[in-house]
């Protein structure tokens, strides 16, 4: 069977080779890179612009962004017909292609996040490595831990007041540098679609900007969600007095900090959500007003076949309802959770409507293609480009975050100042 034939149903006149070649993993890909970029921008709001209220969120968001960073290229790998040749993007890059340039931007961005993390946690690494160095009779695990943290210090054991000041400066510069690169990274994901002139729905210069805005929205939303979950777990543990943290001891203290951070972050979420919706509506209105050759088929897709996906699932449930939830007086954590989940869903649907919606009509402008997500896999292909593959990708950053939080303690690490 031809790739794409399993999940594509063709209607009316389509070219014989047309199938939905870019399926669920290409929906996941901008969704995940969006989360990376958004999480980073959130953490930079504190480091660069000194938004003090976001302090509690900043370090958390950065580590989470790092975890997401490793998950972001995975959809592409699962999507490729020859995943092991993916390295060719670095070996023989063709920079006239947005995907090749993406490889470079992505690596640069990864380097910036990793460096920033190093500066933030350098003191922590040294504090772990030094006592282990002098310790006699190390167990096998301690040897392993010692070697890992030694490597992480990159050979620098100087944690004097002066050197830590330098770290602070470096963090600020990196965070500042990171914002344009993060936007560039996700702008590029938008450019990959926006520059495909053959696709009437994708081709608009607004695409990268729309992608950046919705990326920040989704990144903030995911950080809020994870933050709430982690804080709730800590509240639970604190109430049982099982763990003693260095600060924030009681349930009330944790809860008080939590609602403040969430309230503040929600404001930024709304701000970017407004930008995102305005741009999307501008795009839609502009297409309808100019009504070029492709408008007939686009209209039939947007207002007809994809109406539920676009106007009900994306705009109403994913944008409008959370908007109301956040703006209604008497903000609570529970409402924040509902709102944030809906926002994440809305951004996912936006990616879906761009990627799948862009392939819902034929290049002939006379036919349609319907996508049926493979739910029960019956071979490797329908797993990796089906529900199973998408869920694996979605779970991955949470697992990575759990692993990374062993190395980069997100909460109970004492401030250097």
């Amino acid at each position, binding site marked *: 069977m031809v790739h794409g034939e399993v999940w594509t149903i063709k209607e009316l006149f389509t070219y014989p080779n047309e199938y939905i070649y870019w399926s669920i993993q290409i929906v996941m890909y901008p969704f995940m890179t969006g989360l990376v970029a958004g999480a980073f921008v959130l953490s930079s709001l504190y480091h660069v612009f000194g938004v003090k209220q976001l302090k509690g969120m900043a370090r958390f968001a950065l580590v989470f962004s790092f975890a997401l960073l490793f998950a972001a290229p995975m959809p592409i790998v699962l999507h490729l017909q020859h995943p092991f040749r993916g390295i060719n993007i*670095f*070996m023989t890059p063709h*920079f006239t292609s947005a995907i090749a340039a993406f490889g470079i931007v992505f690596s640069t961005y990864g380097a910036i996040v990793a460096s920033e993390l190093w500066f933030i946690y350098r003191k922590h690494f040294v504090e772990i490595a030094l006592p282990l160095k002098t310790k006699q009779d190390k167990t096998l695990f301690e040897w392993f831990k010692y070697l890992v943290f030694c490597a992480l210090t*990159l050979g*620098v054991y100087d944690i004097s007041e002066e050197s830590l000041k*330098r770290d602070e400066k470096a963090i600020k510069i990196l965070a500042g540098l990171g914002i344009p690169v993060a936007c560039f990274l996700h702008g590029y994901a938008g450019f990959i679609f926006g520059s495909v002139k053959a696709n009437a729905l994708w081709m608009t210069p607004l695409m990268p900007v729309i992608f950046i805005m919705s990326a920040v929205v989704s990144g903030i939303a995911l950080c809020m969600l994870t933050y709430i979950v982690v804080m709730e777990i800590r509240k639970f543990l604190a109430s049982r007095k099982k763990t003693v943290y260095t600060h924030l001891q009681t349930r009330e203290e944790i809860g008080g900090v939590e609602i403040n951070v969430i309230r503040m972050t929600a404001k930024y979420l709304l701000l970017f959500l407004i930008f995102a919706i305005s741009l999307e509506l501008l795009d839609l209105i502009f297409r309808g007003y100019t009504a070029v050759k492709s408008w007939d088929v686009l209209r039939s897709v947007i207002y007809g076949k994809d109406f539920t996906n676009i106007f009900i699932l994306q705009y109403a449930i994913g944008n409008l309802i959370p908007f109301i939830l956040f703006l209604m007086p008497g903000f609570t954590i529970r409402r924040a959770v509902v709102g944030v989940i809906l926002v994440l869903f809305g951004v996912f649907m936006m990616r879906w409507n761009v990627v799948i919606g862009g392939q819902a009509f034929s290049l002939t402008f006379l036919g349609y293609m319907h996508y049926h997500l493979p739910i029960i896999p019956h071979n490797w292909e329908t797993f990796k480009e089906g529900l199973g593959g998408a869920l694996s990708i979605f779970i991955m950053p949470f697992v990575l975050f759990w692993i990374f939080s062993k190395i980069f303690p997100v909460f109970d690490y004492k401030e250097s100042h």
Partner: protein
Amino acid sequence: MKNHVFRPLFVVIGLVGIVLIARLFIVPKDFGVWERGYMYGWHRKSNEEDWKAVKVKYQFNNEYCKDCHGDKYDSLIQSPHAIIKCENCHGPVLEHPLNPAKLQIDRSRQQCLRCHSYLPYPTSGRANIKGIDPGKHNPDIECSMCHNPHKPNLGALSGGK
């Protein structure tokens, strides 16, 4: 103590170096910018030869068939079917008669109906071809039961009706 701030930068430079060195070993020597420039000519040169070396299957030269199948050839060139190449029905010749010794002949109704199923399209070339309604015209038998594809004697058949 020198400034430690550039330590991550050294790591990055090291990684870039590793990638660049890996390129030397992994990228084929003939990979580069060729005649059409970087935009359209960035490729592995020897792949052009790979494509040129693809095996030719169809000769599409009726003279090739003439030596052994002279009778069929003579009959065909005098008929309206002279415009059809032998291999359209007999399949790609490859190295026949060595390999394969016998060609797969397409005798299906479908093969004849490609042209002779009547379609009411006055503005296309199809209108100039004699056609039948495949559902009504002896639907159960092969065309070659009555018609000789090498000498489609329509006149004789209709005269005998």
